[in-house]
């Protein structure tokens, strides 16, 4: 069950973490030529089998909050598609086209005609409106309420036209519209049966490539192909997702041919690579690992803004609020060794917060901090942190942020059970201590860590983001508005009025054109790089191992199975 903690940790990221699989699951491709004419069409039949480390919790797209659940319910149509290779928003799902008002607040979507649920009812604008109204309903308990917070109204113009009015311009607002649609004709109009509907465990209608067949909790979920799928009937009979909690057992099942695909851990790459029956798809994942440096005093966490939105002066951390110290830390980590030894090569150096996967906003010209112990030592000397008593640990001798004599002692935490992070912690401790830090490292239970993190009572933390998605906006990590002890994700208490301003400008750019937004994100990256609220350890590389008994698999960074209806057995 160690796996869970790992998943959960990574699971923290934007909404896109959950939406993307949905959007990406079904990007369009030309419908294959009618098979009956060709004597040698793709082989029909077979079952694609996946393994999941955890069982889903609930098969309702507006109630679920875990990725395992979303993997198990590819039944619900979505408004917008995502290009599996580039991540760009495309009109490949229910929205065929759309128009935007001049102020970018009113979006009118023209929906695809002729798409039906598997029970024959039309998929239309009412389903979309029903789904979003349900989220807002008092009768529905869901963490997805943030999705509707920025929406002023949803109007059904006609069955195939729907108009969404946003309260404020938000360039990533479209992502809020990414949830799967519920079949409104199967629910009570007043949303009263959503929480305890039997459809939450056995959805009867599908408008995607697969329909629900059977779910045995903690065991497997079986799905049948939907022959009425509007992009074309799948070649396979269906797919199965098996719940196999242990990574070692998943690998054994993949080698044994019991499953067709699994996400690989770095230690498993060699064995899969040597197996002639298996392929590996390697991609730059939309996440990174970092060490968060709390700039505020953990004994006195304060919100970043008062009720009127004015900045609140923070009680600075006696050591970490000193930029020179943070810079010295950045120079004293051997990133190359860390990536090679701890991540077994499955990572890449990162200079700042926008990932190369978001090409238009990523500033490739910023160089990651070099491993340079001399520079680090000089920085610490200059900052007034010197080892005057010769015990190997520096003390404050004229430093700017702490009282004289305070030692350079810090606590570093991560979640227990994640062996990669535990190894990283030991290495970081070793490397920092070698230039006069005194790092205490501990791995604690995930729930406890989350409590300390959001409570802002920690000093340094090893953690990561995943599912950052296709938009560069990450204001919840840096904006002073999200520095709210107990709940906000700016838990490093980073405070910079210019960053606040840039994040707002990037999100509220009139027209939202990438070329207009990019300069703001370039400047953000430069500032975050210079100010070092995070030590960026490595960008994530994902590896998927899959069986070569299927053809037509064309995985993209943003979706592995976007064209699953075209896959066929090779023999």
């Amino acid at each position, binding site marked *: 069950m160690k796996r869970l903690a790992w998943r959960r940790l990574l699971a*923290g*990221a934007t909404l896109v973490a959950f939406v993307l699989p949905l959007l990406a699951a079904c990007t369009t491709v030309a419908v294959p030529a009618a098979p009956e004419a060709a004597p040698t069409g793709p082989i029909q039949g077979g*079952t694609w089998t996946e393994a999941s480390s955890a069982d889903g919790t609930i098969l309702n797209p507006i109630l679920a909050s875990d990725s395992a659940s979303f993997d198990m319910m590819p039944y619900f149509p979505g408004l917008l598609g995502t290009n599996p290779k580039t991540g760009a928003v495309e009109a490949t799902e229910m929205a065929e086209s759309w128009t935007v008002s001049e102020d970018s607040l009113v979006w009118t979507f023209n929906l695809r005609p002729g798409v039906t649920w598997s029970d024959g009812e039309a998929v239309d604008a009412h389903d979309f409106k029903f789904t979003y109204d349900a989220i807002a309903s008092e009768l529905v308990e869901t963490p997805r309420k943030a999705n509707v917070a920025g929406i002023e109204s949803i109007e059904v113009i006609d069955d195939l036209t729907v108009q969404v009015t946003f309260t404020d311009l938000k360039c990533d607002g479209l992502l809020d519209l990414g949830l799967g649609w519920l079949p409104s004709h199967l629910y009570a109009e007043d949303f009263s049966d959503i929480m305890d509907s039997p459809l939450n465990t056995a959805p009867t209608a599908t408008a995607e490539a697969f329909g629900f067949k059977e779910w045995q909790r903690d065991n497997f979920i079986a799905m049948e192909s939907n022959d009425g799928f509007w992009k074309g009937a799948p070649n396979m009979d269906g797919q199965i997702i098996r719940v196999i909690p*242990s990574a*070692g057992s998943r690998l*054994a099942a993949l080698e044994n041919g*019991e499953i067709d695909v699994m996400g690989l851990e770095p230690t498993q790459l060699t064995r899969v690579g040597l197996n002639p029956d298996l392929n590996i798809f390697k991609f730059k994942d939309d996440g990174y690992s970092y060490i968060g440096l709390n700039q505020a005093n953990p004994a006195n966490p304060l919100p970043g803004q008062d009720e009127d939105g004015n900045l609140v002066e923070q009680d600075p951390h006696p050591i970490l609020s000193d930029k020179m110290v943070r810079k010295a830390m950045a120079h004293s980590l051997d990133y190359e060794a860390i990536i090679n030894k701890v991540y077994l090569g499955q990572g890449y150096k990162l200079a700042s917060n926008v990932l190369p996967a978001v090409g238009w906003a990523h500033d490739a010209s910023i160089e990651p901090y070099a491993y340079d112990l001399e520079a680090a030592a000089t920085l610490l000397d200059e900052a007034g942190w010197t080892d005057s008593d010769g015990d190997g640990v520096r003390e404050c001798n004229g430093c700017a942020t702490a009282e004289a004599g305070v030692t350079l002692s810090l606590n570093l935490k991560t979640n227990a059970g994640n062996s990669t992070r535990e190894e990283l912690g030991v290495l970081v401790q070793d490397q920092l201590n070698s230039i006069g830090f005194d790092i205490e490292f501990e791995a604690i239970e*995930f*729930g406890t860590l989350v409590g300390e993190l959001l409570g802002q009572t920690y000093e340094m933390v090893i953690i990561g983001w995943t599912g950052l998605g296709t938009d560069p906006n990450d204001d919840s*990590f840096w904006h002073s508005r999200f520095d709210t002890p107990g709940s906000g994700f700016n838990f490093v208490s980073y405070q910079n009025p210019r960053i606040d301003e840039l994040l707002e400008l990037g999100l509220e750019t009139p027209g939202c054109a990438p070329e207009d937004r990019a300069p703001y994100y370039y400047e953000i990256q430069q500032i975050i790089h210079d100010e070092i609220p995070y030590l960026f350890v490595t960008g994530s590389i994902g590896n998927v191992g899959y069986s070569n008994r299927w053809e037509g698999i064309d995985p993209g960074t943003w979706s592995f199975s976007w064209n699953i209806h075209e896959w066929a057995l090779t023999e």
Partner: protein
Amino acid sequence: MTRYIIRRLLQAIPTLLGISLLSFTLIKLAPGDYVLMTTFDPSITAEVREELRRQLGLDQPVPVQYVEWLTGISLRGGDMVDAMAPMSKSCRYFDSLDFTFCDRGGGLLRWDLGYSLATKEPVWDMLRSRMPASFELGVVVLVLTFLFGVPLGFLSALFRGSAKDQGIRLLSVTGQAVPIFWMSLICIFVFSVLLGWLPVGGRMTISLDMKFSLVDRIRHLILPAFVLSLGGVAFLTKLVRTQVLEVIEQDYLRTARAKGLGSLALWSRHVLRNAMLPLATVLGPAILSVINGALVTETIFAWPGMGRLTWFSALQRDYPMIMGAVMFFSALTILGFLISDILYAAIDPRIRLQ
């Protein structure tokens, strides 16, 4: 006897209530709550989290939450009828006392374990759906344990000091010392990956058109049952060996032998029966282990049993689910010990239950 059983069952009620109070408090003391664990996601705002907590009643003090779980009744200060009505069956505001009384339905006292926060399903349904898998594995393990543990212990005692005895004792020490996860992985690697004889895990071969097949079920049972029964067999072997050795030292056995009693009668009537006594003590809790699952084995062999359900809900801080599992296993434990006591009396005529 019947009166004894009824009295023991009645005594179980305050015990269970005590357990529920204690475990509820302990669970609530653990850092992080359900909302935090499921919304560790920057796109979810603090307001949404607060709203969720309010809807789920997690914003209330722990004693209030406990009463709510126990009785299904919510009490709030002030006029909260509007806010509480969507989550309740009936709500009433008492003007003079300035508090709102809402009946949410359910509650342990009404024989209802409530709904899981994560799946929105009844807790009892979730427990029940894992029982067949746990039961299947548990019964097989129990049978294997006794089938091998008792005879091996006897043999070991019978041939005390011989090479056979040494061999069995070595095996039993090894069986107890080898970590289950390691043994499981080795078995999977050898029998599933290298030899391809047995499936890696799961309870059955899963396909779109599944039919029940006994052979298939047995094939899936072999590895987890073998690994899980190792420890039990080892333990029982040692226990039986010690007991038998103790019994054959007794005077009455020498007397019986001197009377010219045949070897078979001697062993079956005198040694076996007397050595069985402590087994009865073990059997009660062992029956409990049949159902309560085995986390490590279930995890490695992807066995969909109760151990994983409980563990997972603890990680998720799914309070009603954790409490449901705790109550269920507590009741089983009490039942297990009752069975032990009854068995004890049945085997040993000197013991009378009163």
